[in-house]
């Protein structure tokens, strides 16, 4: 059953003839074109606004950098040049020096070599007087 070219042509014509062409298409297109030209008329104002967009983005980025990133950076001004961030804290009232971390206090004998130490060390807990030693 192979349809002949003539059968296909006739069938397509028959099908197309069944459907009337809608009359209101131009009205819709015209309305849309009207909206387009309205938009074009408004465009200069939008363009003026868009010129300021990079400046606004830059300002917001600078603000974000200042308020969010700067405080989270390490305070380098108070640090000696030649130090790591490890500190051994010796409580003045005790004879045995201890190294403190934010989480726990360990004895000196348990310490790793300095290069493996956590940079977060240096916060002390407990004790009356403390002395921070640079390594």
């Amino acid at each position, binding site marked *: 059953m*192979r*349809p002949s070219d003539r*059968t*296909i042509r006739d069938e*397509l014509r028959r099908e197309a003839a069944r459907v009337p*062409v809608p009359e209101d*298409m131009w009205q819709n*297109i*015209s309305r849309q074109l009207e909206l387009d030209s309205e938009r074009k008329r408004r465009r200069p104002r939008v363009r003026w606004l868009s010129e300021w967009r990079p400046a606004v983005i830059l300002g917001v980025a600078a603000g974000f950098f200042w308020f969010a990133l700067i405080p989270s950076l390490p305070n380098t001004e108070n640090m000696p040049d030649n130090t790591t961030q490890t500190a051994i804290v010796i409580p003045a009232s005790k004879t045995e020096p201890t190294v403190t971390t934010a989480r726990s206090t360990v004895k000196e004998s348990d310490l790793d070599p300095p290069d493996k130490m956590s940079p977060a060390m240096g916060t002390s807990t407990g004790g009356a007087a403390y002395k921070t030693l640079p390594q």
Partner: protein
Amino acid sequence: MVADLEPVYGHDEEILLIEHCQAGDRRAFEDLFNLYRDDVFRFSYLVVRDTNLAQDVVQEAFLKVFRSIDKFQFRSSFKSWLYRIAVNEAITILRRKKVKEELEPMPDVSRERTVSYATRDWQPEEAVLEGEERRILRWAIGQLDPVHRSVVVLKYFHEFSDTEIGAVIGCPPGTVKSRLHRARELLRNTMARQMGRPDLVALSYARLSNNPV
């Protein structure tokens, strides 16, 4: 590589009309629309097979044409440019709205045939069979994918040459030829399956595998 389509209007008149459109003359837009409206609508309807969708295709296609007509540089014919936009728009709309290609389930042909013989016995047998064949053909055209259906409609309804179809869908005439061949084989295959002829389906598959597109 591609040949241009003959304009509906005289060549010079059409150029003049397009130049007026490029200058923003709304009246020229309307004239150009009226010139091609019926053909583009029928083409769109035969591809999307739904009146409302066809209307959307026509409107979107013409809006695209009018919005970008200042970029049209007369390198191809306006007609092939317009049809290319309409084909793309039809495919886009079908994809976007996810229209199910099988618009209506095919009724049981054998039962219909019995009913036809019983109730329409005044008609000659050939006429009844021909009517059924046409109905199945119409359904089978609806089963083609939008690209093959566009090629079939341009070829058989608009009677474009292979070169002209190539200008519309943007491929060489050889590709158009092979697409048409594949479309015809798909039609034959679908119709044979629908009419309960598995031998023809098998033959069709064998031909398709020898001519992959």
